[in-house]
């Protein structure tokens, strides 16, 4: 799920029409805002403070970027001149001019490779190469006069660089043009130029209202259509796919799009009542909107970016900033009801001639079941139950990893099975040393347990299974083992797994809530107290990090002054004439 936080104003806008764009700065948390034709400012996102800026007498014509290779800022002036300057230079008018004979459209910064210059005629080149050959640069038109480049981005497939243009022609239809780039030179290999017409397979007369080239998670071009559908053109597979419907946005006006991360697109458009705007986070894998954020004002063709966990949005008289959090989608149930199904009337010719062999790898145990067309869950249930009966822990360890969707009853069963194997009844779980000794033995049951904790599940379905399948003692052992994993073990946990472990703690306590309350067993109290201690300890550590971060930041930025002596009292003895 996505959650958008409070809206902040990053900076006021001088004039919306002359606003050129925002680009990432040298540090992730800063952005370079090209506010107008002669103003460039740097802002820190965390506190929205201006940390630098330049003015220029010449007119900027595209957003200023930071080029990591040259370690300097690069801007396009008067469409045909490039200037580069360092962070500490005070005036842009004195920096060296590189004049081109061809008009430059924009600059695209890339992470590890040199930045790319895009020319208005559709050609492109890496910055260094273009600067060296600016006099002799070829001038062949790649886009027709009637056409218009509306979006451009560089992406990478199998270590080859590509460039992708979205071109709009005079008839309001769109084309995608892709071409691989030559190493270092950064210009196009014209022989591999590829043009795809943007059209819907179903013959509706919907038109494009929003487009976006995504290069971060997967290379794809997203289009939003006037019938609220979002389609995706996968640049790697070269195939079209319909993602879903976004019904929260009015389709009469244009929609701005950006990539938020973690399968989420961010869309900005007019709301359905057309009396305000709305920001929608849309999960492209599940095809559902994961968050809505109403806004007061809509502005047509607003520029939309996503930097450093924040959405940067051009609004009518300012640039706004919206911090957000994205959570790994764990609970599909929270999305229930957010997905709207509309009848799809278009006819599609299906090919029922499925291949005999499935397209994926499968263990041989399920071969017979596959033919029956059973679901993964029921297959898993049948296979694992049989293996448990046979008491074949090696096999279980191996097979269970092949399934993604494991039924909750099987998780409970396996937990029980693993505990039985470990047989913790011999040790006193209130004795910490004994526990550590037992748990540090690397054995199959423990590996199984560790894997089980990482499996995705539904709370509501697992709790009854745990209640029925596991004894209170086992639950106490599980809690103790989770604590061991969290605190004492040397196993490296990733944050996702760690949060899963904490979820398991909650779940185990939830399932045995009444027993925990009613029992007067000291063992239970001890384990629960241990859990509390560990959680409190973790919280303390988080606060400690929270407190020390600003100090560390200060030290890193060199602003930390020697601590002034706070112990001295506000007290002086002064000479004064009375």
């Amino acid at each position, binding site marked *: 799920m996505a959650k958008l936080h409070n809206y902040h104003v990053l900076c006021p806008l001088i004039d919306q029409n002359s606003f050129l764009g925002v680009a990432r700065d040298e540090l992730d948390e800063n952005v370079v805002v090209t506010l107008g034709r002669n103003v460039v400012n740097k802002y820190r996102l965390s506190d929205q403070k201006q940390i630098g800026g330049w003015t220029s007498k010449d007119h900027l014509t595209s957003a200023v970027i930071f080029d990591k290779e040259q370690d300097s800022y690069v801007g396009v002036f008067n469409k045909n001149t490039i200037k580069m300057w360092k962070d500490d230079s005070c005036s842009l008018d004195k920096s060296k001019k590189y004049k081109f004979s061809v008009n430059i459209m924009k600059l695209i910064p890339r992470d590890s490779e040199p930045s790319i210059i895009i020319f208005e005629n559709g050609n492109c080149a890496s910055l260094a190469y273009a600067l060296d050959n600016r006099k002799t640069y070829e001038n062949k038109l790649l886009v027709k006069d009637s056409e218009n480049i509306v979006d451009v981005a560089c992406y990478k497939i199998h270590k080859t660089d590509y460039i992708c243009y979205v071109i709009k022609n005079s008839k309001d239809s769109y084309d995608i043009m892709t071409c691989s780039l030559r190493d270092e030179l950064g210009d196009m290999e014209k022989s591999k130029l590829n043009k795809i017409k943007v059209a819907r397979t179903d013959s509706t007369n919907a038109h494009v209202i929003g487009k976006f080239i995504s290069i971060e998670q997967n290379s794809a071009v997203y289009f939003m259509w006037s019938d609220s559908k979002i389609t995706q053109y996968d640049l790697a597979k070269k195939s079209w796919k319909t993602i879903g419907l976004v019904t929260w946005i009015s389709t009469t006006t244009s929609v701005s799009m950006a990539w938020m991360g973690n399968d989420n697109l961010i869309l900005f458009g007019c709301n359905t009542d057309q009396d305000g705007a709305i920001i929608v986070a849309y999960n492209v894998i599940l095809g559902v909107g994961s968050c809505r954020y109403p806004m*007061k004002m809509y502005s047509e063709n607003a520029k939309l970016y996503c930097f450093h966990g924040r959405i940067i949005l051009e609004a009518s008289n300012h640039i706004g900033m919206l911090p957000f959090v994205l959570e790994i989608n764990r609970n599909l149930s929270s999305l229930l009801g957010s997905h709207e199904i509309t009848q799809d009337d278009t006819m599609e010719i299906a090919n029922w001639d499925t291949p005999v062999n499935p397209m994926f790898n499968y263990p041989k145990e399920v071969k017979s079941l596959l033919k029956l067309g059973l679901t993964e869950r029921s297959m898993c249930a049948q296979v694992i139950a049989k293996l448990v009966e046979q008491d074949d822990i090696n096999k279980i360890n191996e097979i269970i990893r092949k399934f993604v969707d494991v039924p909750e009853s099987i998780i409970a069963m396996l937990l029980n099975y693993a505990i039985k194997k470990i047989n913790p009844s011999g040790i006193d779980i209130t004795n910490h040393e004994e526990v550590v000794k037992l748990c540090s033995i690397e054995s199959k049951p423990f590996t199984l347990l560790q894997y089980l904790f990482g499996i995705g599940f539904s709370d509501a379905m697992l709790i009854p299974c745990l209640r029925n399948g596991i004894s209170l003692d086992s639950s106490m052992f599980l809690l103790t083992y989770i604590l061991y994993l969290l605190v004492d073990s040397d196993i490296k946990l990733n944050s996702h797994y760690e949060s899963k472990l904490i979820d398991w703690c909650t779940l185990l306590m939830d399932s045995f809530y009444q027993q925990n309350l009613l029992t007067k067993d000291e063992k239970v109290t001890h384990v629960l107290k241990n859990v509390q201690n560990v959680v409190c300890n973790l919280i303390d550590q988080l606060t400690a990090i929270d407190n020390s971060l600003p100090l560390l930041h200060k030290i890193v930025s060199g602003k930390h002054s020697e601590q002034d002596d706070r112990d001295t*009292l506000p007290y002086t*003895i*002064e000479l004064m*004439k*009375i």
Partner: protein
Amino acid sequence: MACKLHRVRYYNPKPVQVNCVAFNKSNKLLALARQDASIEIWDLNYAPYLIKCIPGVENTSVEALGWVNERLLSTGLGGALVEWDTDKLSIKYTVMLTGYAAWCLDVNSAKELVAVGTEQGYVNLYSVENDEIVYRKLFDKQEGRIICCKFDQPGNILATGSIDSIRVWNVETGQATCRISVARRGKETIVWCLAVLSDGVVVSGDRYGRLTFWDSNLGDQIESYTTHKRDILCIAVSDDENSMYLSGVDPVIVQFVKVKSGSNKQTSANWVKNVQRNIHEHDVRALAINGEKLISVGADGYLTLSSYPPKWVMRIPPMVPYPRSSVCAGKKLLLLRYSNYLEVWKLGSYAVNKNGNVILNNTNIKKEIKQENTRTQLEEDTEVIAPNEIDRHDKKQKQTLKLTEQPLKLVSIQAKGKKQIKCCELSPSGELVVYSTESHIRMLKLECDDESNISLTKVLISGITCCDRVAFTADSRTLVACCSGELKILQVDPEAGATVIQTIACDKYLKTKSILHLVVSKVTPTSYIVAADTMGRIAVWIKKAKKFEFYVTLPKYHCVLSAITIDDRRETLIVVYVDQKIVEYSLVDKQVTSSNKAELHAEWSARTAPVVSLSAHPLRDALVLEDDVSLWVLDNNTTSDFEEQPSAPKKKQKWFKKLQTTGLHVIPLKYLSGFHWLGDDEAVTLEILPENIVSQLPPGIGSKKHAL
């Protein structure tokens, strides 16, 4: 010669917010109650001066106050109507109310009836004629707590405000004649304050910052203005009903004035918004009008007086009542009084070089902190003197000495039962600390010869349970305490304890039993005790053989004295009254010797703040007077050593030259809460910086600027 001034800025008692005020128009006394249930009575006849302070008791509250002529009534969440004895500063009479906690109280204009509104919705009506409190009637119970109540001018109707409604009652029958629904949009609307005008219009201020005018007969809304962003907590209407002020959680004070409009036949009056003033940064809880001046109090604890026109603001900071500190010059000890505890500090010492000269701190790189008040554009105090000029002058001269020892807190003494302290004193020898709460007096022996070994031992006191003022003689062997109009002389022995050896009844010589000032002469050939009461009477006793005998009373003066001291060298008594008059009285000749020349200075007579304490200069024939924001030095002979001042640009110095030649010298110190001489050229000042007061307050509503 320059004086070595110990500037103590670590004395920061917690400011206590003010809950409510009641202004007595006949004698211009203002009663105000703070959150800690203490009640202060200020005399506003001349410069506002705190004359009485009733200490609060833990877990009690005062939510409303009222004056019935000279009698002070209060009520609070304890559910009782309390009459206070303003002489003895204690409870005189208590009546339990019906309906639990009480939120509001109003006295009718004839001073006959008191109405109290309670939590359960009962209005309790009491008759307060003939110095009594007699139950009169209980009005019909209404739903929900009564938050505010107000009589109309003749006292026939009473308006009460509660959640979502205003009721108008017939005082005679105790029945509601009208119910006005205030709820809007289904949201709970709290009516915080009411005013009833003589034409039957009820004015209400509510939770949503709306000021609404209602017809009390029909219950119709006449007019409504949204004047504040947040709750309106208080309304004050002027006597002529031509203007009203309102404020609240949004601390802007808005004035409404009545404007007559229409032709000759049909004149109708309209209320229109006039000026608004940004005086407070925190909730304004109560407003009162004293003639041309508006009194506003609230969560910041300040007592603020303001007027417009002329635009003028005066703030009296929240401080522990005087006397709040005391010194032992020999041991350089400083006693600090807080609400319910005391601290004894050893002052720091400065470095001296081989020649015996002091070493200046060269590394004085303190930046001038220019406080920018951009946040709310708060109105500054209107001061009589131009402070900038003095500041500049002062900063140039500022020379900080190098410290060899930091000040050290020796002990912290919690008052018995955590009660609020009424008075305290450190003996001149530095070995005894005495304090009194409203029920207990305690004397403690402090031994601190070496810093690691500090001990406090209790010294027995017999014959006295508590006192209002206390003073030691110079030898620390005699203690003078006054309690409820009697002076008790105690013989003190740190080992054996203190016993009363003489009791003097003051009623013959003084007008009231509450004594405001008690001074004991230190080094005069004969010992004098001087006591002054809250009506401005001063009586002097002299030591004859073993006993003190009545000596003289000073001539009557028309106002309260704000400070008094004995000039030991000349055996004169110097008195400053709240109207800034300085009188010198020779104790030997029993007559007024001279009025100080200070009155000739325009600057002196233009002062609006009272002198809080004064002392004679140990080296010159000069007086040092202290008020909340500055120290004034008045030289009696005009040719003082000030001619040797470093010559600064003439223009800037012009004003100063004028003052210097006339023998007046002002040192601004904001807020000065104590000044004591430690020797001939050494003194200590207690300063409470305004920012330290603000930092201890809860945050005001403020305006966030970044969020949309």
